[in-house]
């Protein structure tokens, strides 16, 4: 797995299946509404939120535009602080480095703090193949792991599950991998969280090696930052002897004071809190306190590909707050699995193609998984203009087909022909006039034979066959008027005669 779930169908097909799952739709609608309201309340509390967004966007943009310098600085400061720095070109290299550290310490298990980067590189599966168990310790990740499920949200990977389903998963599976769930397990969230606490505590206490990601990496001080809520992060970052952090190279900010804007933007955008319960920062090794062997794996895995894209580069500013998912009307209805990646929602729809290219059908379908309503851009704390990047990635998809001599799929071909025909028609108003006459004729035919009338009296087409079926399956289509505006203008001299 390198970012996208293997064997996922393209978005429209996956979405259709997801839409049919009414339980999941109810869970998602409830959860996204809750978090949207919380975010809106704490954002409204900040006097100059827009100023903060501008600062946050600039901090990340500046770091990206001089990334090589900052990475070298980061490596230096980390090394000075006693950390061991590794570099990984891709998922495979990164997984191999982590596995090697585990092997060096002779362990057959590691504890993990939730991290998007390790999900992206498929670390758990890679470690499992080496006989090393990776225990997820974030509650939602634990739910996903125990349920043999896939994550569907950046912040709350089990957002698609409700409390009753979670109780069932805990009851059924906890005993297989450690301390079983208590007999009296109810579906009260407090009780479920308590069960996770008991289940994981023995793992924290005995773990020798922990794996984390990082929300930020400060170049000039060699400081890594993990932002969390439950305390599982603190457990992993503090108790084991060895800590390996897998950090995407885009997580770099230049200076310690750059964290100011980020630490104010992230919790409000993410969990809708003024500040998340726990933020841990550490710079290498602190003698006598916490892990005494600290590794940092700097990961590319497609990031330099995205960095080279002048429009798409801004996607690397993302701080994985998931606000764009929570406001997205498409995400709210279809959920995260349909995107086929650990990065779902609007950010996933641009990040996956930017990281991996659009050569496979599934990734190529993602930039179209949006109505371009712009709600994501409006909430993004680092002002990523997701709609513009989506449109640009659509162009990348179309351009990737331009040289095709054999159509890769029928629908691409049809669309390309239709678009070329439309462009031809719209390039010259005389051609458009002819097209409108033809549609006016069609309108007269519909007007004569249709039994559907819109409120207000206009004739409409009901269910139509062929290419119009996509529209008319659930929507009536007004019949084209007999006379276009342009014909009316000419006939009446703009209504003057």
């Amino acid at each position, binding site marked *: 797995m390198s970012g996208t779930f293997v064997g996922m169908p393209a978005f429209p097909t996956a979405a259709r299946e997801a839409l049919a799952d009414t339980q999941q739709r109810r869970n998602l609608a409830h959860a996204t509404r809750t978090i949207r309201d919380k975010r809106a309340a704490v954002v409204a509390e900040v006097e100059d939120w827009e100023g903060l967004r501008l600062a946050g966007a600039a901090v990340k943009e500046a770091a990206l535009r001089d990334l090589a310098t900052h990475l070298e600085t980061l*490596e230096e400061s980390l090394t000075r602080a006693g950390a061991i720095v590794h570099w990984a070109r891709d998922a495979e290299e990164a997984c191999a480095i982590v596995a090697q550290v585990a092997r060096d310490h002779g362990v057959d298990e590691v504890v993990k703090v939730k991290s998007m980067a390790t999900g992206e590189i498929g670390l758990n599966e890679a470690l499992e193949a080496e006989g090393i168990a990776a225990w997820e310790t974030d509650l939602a990740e634990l739910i996903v792991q125990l349920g043999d499920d896939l994550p569907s949200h950046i912040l709350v990977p089990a957002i698609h599950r409700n409390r009753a389903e979670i109780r069932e998963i805990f009851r059924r599976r906890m005993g297989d991998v450690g301390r079983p769930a208590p007999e009296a397990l109810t579906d009260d969230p407090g009780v479920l969280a308590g069960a996770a606490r008991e289940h994981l505590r023995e793992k924290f206490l005995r773990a020798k090696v922990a794996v984390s990601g990082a929300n930020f990496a400060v170049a000039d001080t060699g400081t890594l930052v993990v932002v969390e809520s439950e305390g599982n992060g603190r457990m992993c970052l503090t108790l084991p002897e060895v800590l390996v952090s897998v950090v995407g190279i885009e997580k770099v900010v230049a200076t310690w004071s750059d964290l100011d804007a980020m630490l104010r933007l992230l919790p409000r955008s993410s969990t809708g809190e003024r500040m998340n319960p726990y933020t841990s920062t550490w710079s290498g090794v602190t003698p006598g306190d916490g892990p005494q062997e600290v590794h940092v794996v700097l990961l590319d895995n497609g990031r330099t590909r995205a960095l080279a894209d002048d429009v798409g580069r801004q996607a690397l500013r993302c701080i994985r707050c998931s606000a764009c998912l929570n406001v997205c009307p498409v995400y709210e209805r279809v959920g995260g699995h349909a995107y086929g990646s650990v990065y779902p929602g609007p950010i996933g729809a641009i990040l996956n193609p930017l990281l991996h290219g659009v050569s496979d059908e599934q990734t190529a379908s993602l930039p179209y998984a949006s109505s371009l309503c712009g709600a994501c851009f409006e909430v993004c704390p680092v002002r990523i203009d997701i709609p513009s990047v989506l449109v640009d990635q659509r162009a990348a998809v179309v351009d990737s087909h331009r040289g095709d001599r054999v159509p890769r799929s029928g629908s691409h071909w049809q669309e390309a022909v239709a678009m070329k025909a439309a462009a031809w028609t719209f390039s010259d108003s005389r051609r458009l006039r002819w097209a409108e006459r033809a549609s006016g004729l069609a309108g007269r035919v519909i007007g004569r034979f249709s039994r559907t009338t819109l409120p207000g009296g206009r004739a409409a087409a009901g269910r139509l066959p062929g290419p119009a079926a996509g529209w008319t399956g659930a929507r009536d289509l007004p019949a084209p008027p007999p006379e276009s505006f342009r014909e009316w203008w000419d006939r009446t001299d703009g209504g003057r005669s």
Partner: protein
Amino acid sequence: MSARDDILRRVREALDGVSPAVEIPAAPRAPDRGDLVALFVERVEDYRAIVTRCAADELEQVVRDALGEARAVVPPGLGVEVAGATVDDGLTATELDAIDAVVTRAAVGIAETGTIVLDHRPDQGRRAISLVPDLHVCIVDASQVVADVPDAIAVLDPARPLTWISGPSATSDIELDRVEGVHGPRTLHVVLVG
């Protein structure tokens, strides 16, 4: 070519012709909200943490009351007498797990967000001791309270490990319903002196 050199080369190539100059506007500051300490108390309480304000000479008694029957661990440099407490001398995680409570001081309190920050000097102790026990009694001096995040960033030393704490451990992973108390201390009791 090493992975390191390869990645740095790719980064340079990706940014070829891209100007590194980006103007970073100063992040806006929160407006003056008057009494910082009062705001700090209000915001800490918003997280369903317990806050007790007291004078310096009441501190020992307040800590005693906060602990009740709980068996506590304290860092070596706490500077407050806690009767019966174990002074941390490198206790193992399992030993800490058998202890109910911890008493520490803090480095900074942030009023705007109701956050306390520990920089784990001897009056706060190693990170593990304020993590494993279920009750954290944290003593903050009123003079340590700053207005907002940038003020905290300015006084904190990034070379030290830092733990920013805003209320007790919590999760919203089940239906985005907030529940206090997962792996970190389930009860946070802030004692504000002065």
